[in-house]
């Protein structure tokens, strides 16, 4: 239970983050995304920094 809301974990796991935000943004505000990951047990994918092209060694 989070903030008085009893979540159906299986239902949240089957739900996309955008759908979760649509339903609970008003309740959790800026924390909505972290609540989603906490309930669903999913791991937030960190955006990988773009690899800089390797500088080729001078011949």
């Amino acid at each position, binding site marked *: 239970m989070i903030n008085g*809301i*009893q979540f159906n974990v299986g*239902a949240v796991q089957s739900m996309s983050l955008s759908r979760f935000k*649509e*339903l609970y943004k008003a309740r959790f505000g800026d924390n909505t995304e972290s609540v989603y990951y906490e309930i669903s047990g999913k791991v937030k994918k960190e955006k990988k920094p773009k690899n800089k092209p390797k500088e080729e060694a001078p011949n």
Partner: protein
Amino acid sequence: MSDKNCNCDVISLGNTGIPDCSLIADVAAFPLLDMAKDSSGAPKERLKTDLTVFANLEPLLNAASPLDRIYPIGKFENVEHNREDDVFWTANSGKQAFVREGFKTFQGMIINAPRELTGKLNSNACQSFGFHFLDDSNQLVTKKGTDSTKCKPILIDPDTFRTKYVEATNDAPAMLMLSFQWKSTEKDADVKVVGGLDYTGSDLYGLIDADATYSAITTTGFTATITSTCYGGAVEGLLLGDFSLSEVSPTPGVESIASVTESSAGVYDIVLTTPAASTEVFRLSASKDRFDFSEMSDGTNDITIP
């Protein structure tokens, strides 16, 4: 009822020995009403241990089928539970002949019972049912079954089952008075006393009817306000697992609930996992010990998505 009770198969008198120790019933204290037939339509017969062991009894107090359920009705005081005098015919000579056994009547009072219970009990009068009871020595008094491990309800004549509410006075509290007669076919000799209960009458409870009204119905969910239909109080403390939702139309099936929030006492905000379409119809059910939610899911107040 005649009850001549004459056994013409033997030509001697019945033996009159009694065991050194036998359980004797005390004053009736906690009647347990029980339907005469079970949900399969067979005459009701229960395992004795279903009524003597609370772990077996509690599921029967909460049984989903009203026919299988046990209905305790509180602690009775001033109980009178007697058989009227037998009826004899008297010849002109003065000789008497037995005509029939007197009817057996139960009468007792529950102190400070809510007056709504009067209506609940009086509505039983058209049913076919019986009772067992716990006595003041915490023994179970019931009717013998087909073998020593089983028991049956002592049948009640429903025409005689009646409660009335007795208002409080300066000298006495308000009371509910119940009286009924045993069915004329029920014999004192068929009643047995069972000891060794692992609970007392104060552990017993009957179910409270509950129903819901719905508001704030949208495609994402709705609010259900759940109250006792008879007494009006909020039904608090329901958990997500206590609810189930089904789609009635257009595609019958189970509907997933994403979350439940009890926003105030007995008021539950229910969010659907997948958005509903307009005109879809849902039916909410609930299940929790001590409550009967059958009115909630009887199809009279389904939820139509606007």
